[in-house]
C-alpha cells in the first residue's frame, strides 16, 4: 500500500474511525447530545475530506477500491444523505428506553459500509461493504426492543439478509471458479469463459439475486414493507436512501465493468424483474393506509425505474441512473423528514389519517410533503420529473419500448396513491387532530431538501452537464 493509496482512503478512514469511536464512546458518555453532535461532525468531516479529490485522476486502491469521479459523486451524495439521516435521528422523539446513543455510531458504521460499496471494484470489497452495512442496519432496525414489530423486522431482515449473503458468496465462488479472479473487470472479460460459461452464468445470477434482494426488487421484495414499518422512522429513511443508494451504486459499476448489457439471458432476466417491480410495487401501494408501508412499496417501484434506466446501457443510462438516485435520495429523505418531525415519542406519524388536514395546521410542512410526493410521482417542477425524463430518454435512445411502456403504466398506477396522500393533507382536519411544530434545525434541513428537489426540477443543467462529464470519464468510447 503506497502513500497514494492511504491518501485516497482518508475519507473512508475518518468515517470508519468515527464509527468505532462513537460506539465505544456511547458506553462512557451517557449524554446523547454529545455523541449525536460528534456523529454529525464526522459526516461533515467526511464530506470536507472529499474536497481535495475533485478534479484529480482516478486512484485505485490495491485492486479493491477505485476513487474516480463517479465514486466521488456517490460519496458526496451518500455522505449528505448520511448527514441528513443523522439529523433525523436526532430530531425524532423516541421513548426513553429506545434512545441509546449507540445508534449514532452504528449509523456511521453502516455509512462506512455504504461508502466502501460505492467505491468497490472487487468482490472482496463488495462483500466487506455490504456486510458492514447490513450488520449495522440489522441492529438499528431491531433497536426498539420493546416493540414487537421492531423485533420482527430485525429478525426478518437478519434471516433474509443472511440468506442473500449466502447466495452472494456462493455466486462469487462460482464466478471465481469460472474466471480465476474477483475483480469486476477481469471477471467481466472472462465471459463467456472457455471452461465455465455455466459457472459464470450461475454465479452471476446468484450474485445479482443477492444485490437485487438489497434493492428490494420483485420477487425478492417481501421483507421491505415489514422492515420499513418495524424500524423507527429515521432508520427507515436511512435504509431507503443510503443503503439502497450504495447497493445501486455497486450495481452500476458491476453492470458496466462486467459488460452485463452483452449477457443476453441475464440482461433479459433483470429487465423482467425491473418491469415486475414497477407494476407490483405500485399495485401493492394502492390501498395502503400505512405510510411507511406505502413508501416501502413506492421504493420497490422506484428501484424498478432506476434498474430500467440502467438496463438501457451506454453513457446516457449511467447518467440517468445516477440522476435518478440523486433526486430519489433528496425526495425520500424529505418525505421521511416530514413524518419524523410530526412524530411523538412512542407514536410515530405512520397512518394516513394522522396526516389529514395537515395543511390547515402546519401549511409549510404540508407543502413540503406535497412537493416530495409530487416528486416521487414525477410531476413537473420537481426533480422526479427530470428523473423520469432521464429514464424515458435513455430507454427511448436504446429503443426499449416494452420496458418504457411498463414505466408509463407503473407511473400511472403510482399517481393514485401519491395523490391520495396529497388529498388527505388538504382535507378538513379531524376535530381531535393536533400536530407538532417543527424545530428550527429540522425546518432548515427540510427547506433545503425542498429547494434541492425544486432546483433539480427547474434547472438541472449544472448537474446534467456534470453527470455527462462523469459518464464520459467512466465509460470512455
Amino acid at each position, binding site marked *: 500500500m503506497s502513500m497514494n493509496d492511504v491518501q485516497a482512503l482518508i475519507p473512508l478512514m475518518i468515517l470508519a474511525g468515527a464509527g468505532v469511536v462513537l460506539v465505544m464512546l456511547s458506553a462512557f458518555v451517557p449524554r446523547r447530545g454529545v455523541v449525536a453532535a460528534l456523529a454529525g461532525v464526522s459526516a461533515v468531516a467526511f464530506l470536507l475530506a472529499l474536497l481535495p479529490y475533485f478534479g484529480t485522476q482516478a486512484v485505485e486502491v490495491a485492486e479493491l477500491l477505485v476513487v474516480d469521479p463517479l465514486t466521488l459523486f456517490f460519496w458526496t451524495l451518500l455522505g449528505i444523505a448520511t448527514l441528513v439521516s443523522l439529523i433525523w435521528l436526532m430530531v425524532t422523539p423516541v421513548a426513553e428506553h429506545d434512545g441509546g446513543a449507540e445508534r449514532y455510531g452504528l449509523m456511521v458504521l453502516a455509512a462506512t459500509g455504504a461508502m466502501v460499496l460505492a467505491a468497490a471494484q472487487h468482490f472482496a470489497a463488495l462483500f466487506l461493504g455490504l456486510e458492514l452495512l447490513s450488520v449495522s442496519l440489522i441492529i438499528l432496525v431491531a433497536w426498539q426492543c420493546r416493540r414487537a414489530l421492531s423485533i420482527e423486522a430485525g429478525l426478518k431482515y437478519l434471516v433474509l439478509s443472511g440468506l442473500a449473503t449466502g447466495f452472494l458468496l456462493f455466486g462469487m465462488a462460482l464466478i471465481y471458479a469460472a474466471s480465476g479472479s474477483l475483480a469486476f473487470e477481469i471477471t467481466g472479460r472472462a465471459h463467456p469463459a472457455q471452461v465455465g460459461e455455466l459457472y459464470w452464468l450461475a454465479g452471476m445470477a446468484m450474485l445479482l439475486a443477492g444485490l437485487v434482494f438489497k434493492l428490494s426488487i420483485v420477487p425478492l421484495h417481501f421483507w421491505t414493507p415489514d422492515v420499513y414499518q418495524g424500524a423507527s422512522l429515521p432508520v427507515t429513511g436511512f435504509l431507503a436512501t443510503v443503503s439502497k443508494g450504495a447497493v445501486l451504486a455497486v450495481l452500476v459499476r458491476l453492470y458496466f465493468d462486467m459488460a452485463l448489457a452483452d449477457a443476453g439471458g441475464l440482461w433479459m432476466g433483470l429487465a423482467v424483474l425491473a418491469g415486475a417491480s414497477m407494476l407490483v410495487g405500485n399495485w401493492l401501494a394502492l390501498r395502503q393506509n400505512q405510510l411507511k408501508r406505502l413508501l416501502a412499496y413506492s421504493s420497490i417501484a422506484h428501484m424498478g425505474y432506476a434498474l430500467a434506466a440502467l438496463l438501457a446501457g451506454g453513457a446516457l443510462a449511467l447518467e440517468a441512473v445516477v440522476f435518478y438516485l440523486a433526486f430519489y435520495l433528496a425526495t425520500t429523505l424529505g418525505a421521511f423528514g416530514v413524518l419524523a418531525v410530526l412524530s411523538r415519542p412512542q407514536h410515530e406519524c405512520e397512518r394516513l389519517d394522522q396526516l389529514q388536514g395537515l395543511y390547515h395546521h402546519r401549511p409549510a410542512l404540508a407543502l413540503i410533503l406535497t412537493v416530495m410526493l409530487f416528486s416521487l410521482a414525477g410531476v413537473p417542477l420537481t426533480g422526479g420529473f427530470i428523473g423520469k425524463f432521464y429514464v424515458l430518454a435513455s430507454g427511448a435512445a436504446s429503443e426499449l419500448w416494452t420496458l418504457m411502456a411498463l414505466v408509463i403504466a407503473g407511473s400511472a398506477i403510482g399517481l393514485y396513491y401519491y395523490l391520495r396522500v396529497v388529498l388527505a393533507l388538504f382535507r378538513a382536519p379531524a376535530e381531535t387532530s393536533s400536530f407538532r411544530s417543527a424545530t428550527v434545525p429540522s425546518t432548515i434541513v427540510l427547506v433545503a431538501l425542498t429547494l434541492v428537489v425544486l432546483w433539480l426540477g427547474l434547472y438541472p443543467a449544472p448537474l*446534467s452537464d456534470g453527470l455527462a462529464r462523469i459518464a464520459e470519464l467512466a465509460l470512455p468510447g
Partner: protein
Amino acid sequence: MTLMALIALPLLAAPLVWWLGRDNPGRAGVLALIAVLADLALALTLFTAGGDAEPWLQRWQVDWIPRFGIQILLAVDGLGLLMVLLTLGLGAAAILASLSEIRERPGFYYFHMLLAIAGTLGVFLALDLFLFFFFWELMLVPMYFLISVWGHEDRDRAAIKFFIFTQASGLVMLLAILGLVWAHHADSGELTFSYFALLEAGLDPQFAFWLMLGFFLAFTVKLPMVPLHTWLPDAHTQAPTGGSVLLAGVLLKTGGYGLLRFVVPIFPEASAAFAPVALWLGAAGVLYGAVLAFGQEDVKRLVAYSSVSHMGFVLMGVFALNIQAWQGTVLQMLAHGLTTGALFVIAGLIQHHFHTRDMKRLGGLWHRLPRLGVMAMFFAVASLGMPGLANFVGEFLILVGSFRADAVVTAVAALGLIGAAVYSLILIQRVFQGPETETTASGISLDRRERFLLGALAVPVVVLGLVPQPVMDLAAPALAVLESLMPSGVLP
C-alpha cells in the same frame, strides 16, 4: 421577451395573491383579476410585434438544459395568439365567476387559478417540445387542486381520475417526443427538442405512424375524444365554477391546438393515413356526446357531454386536412370556449342560488330570474349552432371542409346538430320553463357583476358569428403553412 413576460406575470403574481389574499376573498379575487387583465393587455401588444419569419409574430429563446439541447423556446403565430387571448379572456371570466362562490382559503384558490392560466399560456407558446411537455403536465397540478379542494361532493375521485388520465397519456406523448428526438438525432447528428428542427426530421414512415399515435393519444384524451372522454364529465361536474370554465373553455383547447400544431405538421403522411379513422372517431364523439347530454339529469353533466359532442367536430376539422376545415376548427374552439364557459357560469349560478344542479328539482326559473333565463337561452341557442352566432360559423366550415374529405362521415356527423338542438332546448325547458318547484320557489336576482360577466361573454359570440373574417385572417398564415406541409395528393 414579451412572450416570457406573458407567462411570468401570472406565475409571479400567484404567490403574491396567495399571501395578500390569504383570508380576504374579495382582495384575492380582485388582485388575481388585475393580474390577468394586465397580462391580457400585454398579450394585445403582440399584434404590433415586429414580425419574425412568416407566419411567426415573435420568437424568444434561451438555453435551458444544454445536455439534451433543450431550450426555453417561445414563439407565437396567429393561431397561438388567438389561443392566448382566449385563455386570458376566459381566465378573467373564471375569476369573476369565482368571486362570490369561493369563501374558503381564497388566496390559495386564486394562486392555483393563476398557475393554471400560466401553464396553459405556456402550452400555447412553447415550441421546444420538452418545454411544451413541461407546461402540458404543469397545468394539471393546479387544476387538480382546484377540483380536489374546492370541488363538489364527489371531488376526490374526479380529481384523481382527471390527473391519472392526463398524466398517463402525457407520458406516452413524452415517449413519442423522445422517439422523435432520437430519430432526428440519428438522422442529423443534432440533439434538439426544437419544433423548427424536428419539423424536418426524416422519419421511417412506419415509425412515424407510431410516434404520431403517441401524440394523438395525449391530445385526444385532453380534447376529449370518445372513448377517452370518461374523465371529463366527472371533472367538469365536480369542479368549482371557475375551474369548470377554465377546463371547458381553455384546457380542452390545448388538445385541439396540439393536434394542429404538432401532429399534422410533424407527421403529415402519418396523419393523412390515419385521417379516415380519426374522422369517424370525431363523428362518433359528436353523436355519442349529444345522445348522452340528452340523458343527463345534472345541469353541469349535460353541458359537459355537450362539450364532448362539440369537440368531436374539432377532431373532424383537424383531420379533414384542408384549410376550410382548419379555419372552422379554430373558430369552433373559440366559440366553444365562450359558449360553454358561459353555460358553466350559468350552471354555477344556479347551483349557488338553489344548491342543486339536479334538473328534476329545478323549473320555472324564467319568472324568478328573467335575465338569467335570457342569457341561458342565448348561450344554449349559440351552442346548438344558430346562424349568426359564433358556433355556427365553426361547425359550418368544419362540415364544408370534411365534406371534401369524406361525404359519408360528414353526413353522419351533421346529425349531431339535431341532437344539439334537442339537448340545448331540453336544458332550457326543464330548468327555466314549466312550474316552479320547492327548490326554486325562493330566488335571488342576479347582481351587477354576474350580469356584466354573462354580457361580456355574449358580445364576442355575436361578433364572431357576424364578422369572423378578422379572426380567420389572423389564423390564415399559420394554417397556410400547415397546408404547404401536406404531401401532395392528400388534399382533395
